[in-house]
């Protein structure tokens, strides 16, 4: 059964882990042992039952009532399956949020309706990052409606507050939903709440099922052939190139080009799952015999001979910085690490989505930048091919951000 990944984003304390915990329980997906453990620790901390403890398993997380690191729980309900990805909301833990959200097919953004909470910088930052990573579908769940007597006015207020930003960064139309909920009291999660009769739309689960229905990923098969090379292997009849088909398909006998080397070869042998086959497609791990070749390093890409992919060393990119880098910068592109330098062209305010003047790097901010790499790489615009259009950024071995190719 296909599992759709949904990442739950938003400011800390707006109820992400509580919502996931309750969804797992109500759908009958949490094991009894996890529920019992959550009960035990709820009592310990003098709380009524705390569903977040089903996800928050570290002692520190329960003691401090705060998620430190990403995790996921699997939910199965009425013939649909989702991996509910929990991420920390705290600003300092943004790298863990990015890690969890990067696997999402769509996001559920939580905004607390409680007075004094509402839409925050971090709410918008999470949305900005999700959009930047190519996620185009979002559910805005206005949470803690119980604290405002389930009033429609407060829901509308929050909706109006966030809607212009969502449109500015490109969440809109049929791929954007708003729903009022109480994660703790399970209003509008799987079914329809009696506390908010004014809301006549779908329940959270029903929206999730709708958004998850039209699976992406399948379109990778229709894009041009791209294989990310991992390594070489030797078998009895010579060496084979090992990698994953990130898009397109290939056939025995086809002519291919290896970039950035510019090497042209014919595919003489194809292995998938250890067996010789005649063809392979996107998503499969292959081993290819392409005659005698020198070692082809990681980060190389195999494409069709005539489809015009070129290797470049100057790249216009959009970069999000989780922290300020030192002078030395490396990027990880398609599994290979290489040196790079950055020239910031302008900053981007992640809370408005607008470009602003400024050439310095701001932690937890984004920028348009000119990236110069130490070697040529077969990068493509993110819009054309996600996997060849994105990279992670490191400085002195520490993760400092993510980038996409414009």
């Amino acid at each position, binding site marked *: *059964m*296909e*599992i759709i990944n949904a990442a739950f984003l938003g400011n800390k304390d707006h109820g992400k882990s509580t919502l996931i915990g309750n969804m797992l329980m109500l759908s009958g*997906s949490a*094991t*009894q*042992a*996890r529920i019992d*453990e959550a009960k035990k620790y709820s009592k310990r901390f003098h709380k009524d039952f705390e569903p977040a403890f*089903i*996800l928050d*398993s*570290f*002692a*520190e997380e329960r003691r401090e009532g705060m998620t*430190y*690191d*990403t*995790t*996921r*729980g*699997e939910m*199965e309900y009425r013939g649909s*399956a989702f991996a509910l990805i929990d991420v920390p909301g705290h600003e300092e833990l943004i*790298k*863990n949020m*990015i*890690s969890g959200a*990067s*696997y999402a097919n769509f996001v559920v953004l939580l905004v607390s309706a409680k007075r004094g909470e509402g839409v925050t910088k971090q709410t918008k930052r999470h949305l900005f990052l999700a959009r930047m990573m190519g996620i185009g579908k979002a559910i805005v769940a206005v949470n803690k409606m119980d604290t405002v007597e389930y009033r429609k006015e407060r829901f509308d207020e929050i909706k109006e507050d966030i809607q212009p930003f969502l449109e500015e960064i490109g969440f809109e139309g049929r791929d954007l939903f708003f729903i009022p909920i109480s994660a703790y009291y399970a209003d509008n999660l799987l079914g329809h709440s009696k506390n908010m009769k004014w809301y006549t739309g779908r329940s959270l689960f029903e929206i999730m099922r709708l958004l998850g229905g039209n699976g992406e990923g399948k379109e990778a098969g229709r894009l041009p052939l791209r294989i*990310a090379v*991992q*390594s070489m*292997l030797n*078998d009895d009849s010579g060496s*084979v190139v*090992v990698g*994953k088909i990130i898009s397109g398909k290939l056939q025995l006998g086809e002519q291919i080009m290896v970039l950035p080397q510019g090497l042209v070869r014919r595919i003489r042998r194809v*292995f998938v*799952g*250890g067996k010789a086959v005649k063809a392979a497609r996107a*998503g*499969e*791990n292959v*081993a290819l015999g392409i005659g005698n070749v020198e070692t082809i390093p*990681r980060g190389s890409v195999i494409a069709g001979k005539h489809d015009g992919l070129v290797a470049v060393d100057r790249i216009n990119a959009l970069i999000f910085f*989780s922290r300020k880098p030192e002078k030395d910068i490396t990027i*990880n592109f398609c*599994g290979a*690490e290489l040196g790079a330098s950055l020239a910031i062209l302008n900053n981007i305010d992640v809370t408005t989505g607008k470009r602003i003047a400024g050439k310095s790097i701001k932690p937890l901010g984004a920028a348009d930048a000119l990236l110069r790499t130490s070697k040529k790489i077969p990068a493509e615009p993110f819009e054309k091919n996600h*996997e060849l259009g*994105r*990279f*992670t950024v*490191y400085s002195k*071995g520490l*993760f400092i951000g*993510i980038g996409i190719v414009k």
Partner: protein
Amino acid sequence: MIKQDLDSIETKAEFILREATSRFRNVAALWSMGKDSTVMLAIARKAFLGKVPFPVIHIDNSIDFPEAYEFRDSLAKKWRLNLIVAESAIKRNLIGAACCGKNKTEALKTVMAEYGFDALIVSIRRDEHGIRAKERYMSPRDKDFKWDYKNQPAELWDNYTSKLDTDGHVRIHPLLDWNEIDIWRYIKRERIPVNPLYFSNGRQRYRSLGCTHCTTPLKSKAKTVEGIIKELEADKDEERSGRSMDKEREYVMQKLRALGYM
């Protein structure tokens, strides 16, 4: 328990195994002869054209079940495994978490140092335990095997971490996404041999295999792989419910893992 698409979780595991051997100089895998690490080896055989390319370590505390030793030797021969048996000096007075922590982890430290392994493939799954669910696919450990769980590296897309502090190693978790029932469905589909203790003797079977000291069987009539799958379809219990160490103290799994336990 959700049944996942076996092709897609197999493909991901295969990819992670190939990443491991491509990124690291000296990779080894832990093989407990249990179902999970045996499934991992079956996937490695597919990923690397029929042969497991890395050595497999069995931490032998000499109190494993006799069936396990027979199973180990026959499969090692059949699959041409490069088997390293790391003997742990079992201390009779230790039980449960103290035993796993001291004996298993210490034996692993010795064998890792002796061979200079910089990466270790461990077949844990998220659905086994809340703490294991917080793991990365590739997770660094320092020279004392400590897991810095409060500061795990970013891990996104297919860019797994490969940064290593000197003298440490990286744990590789290719089966992190798998559920228990997927393991059994895969065993059925690929006809993978498993330790006979998993099957019922008519009254009971082992659902999770540790060593003789700390593992208790559960009531079951499942005598075949199909029988086990059927049983799991209806099940609400946790797999490790027969493992005493998971229950005895609070956060015992977190403490053990922080100190290097698998």
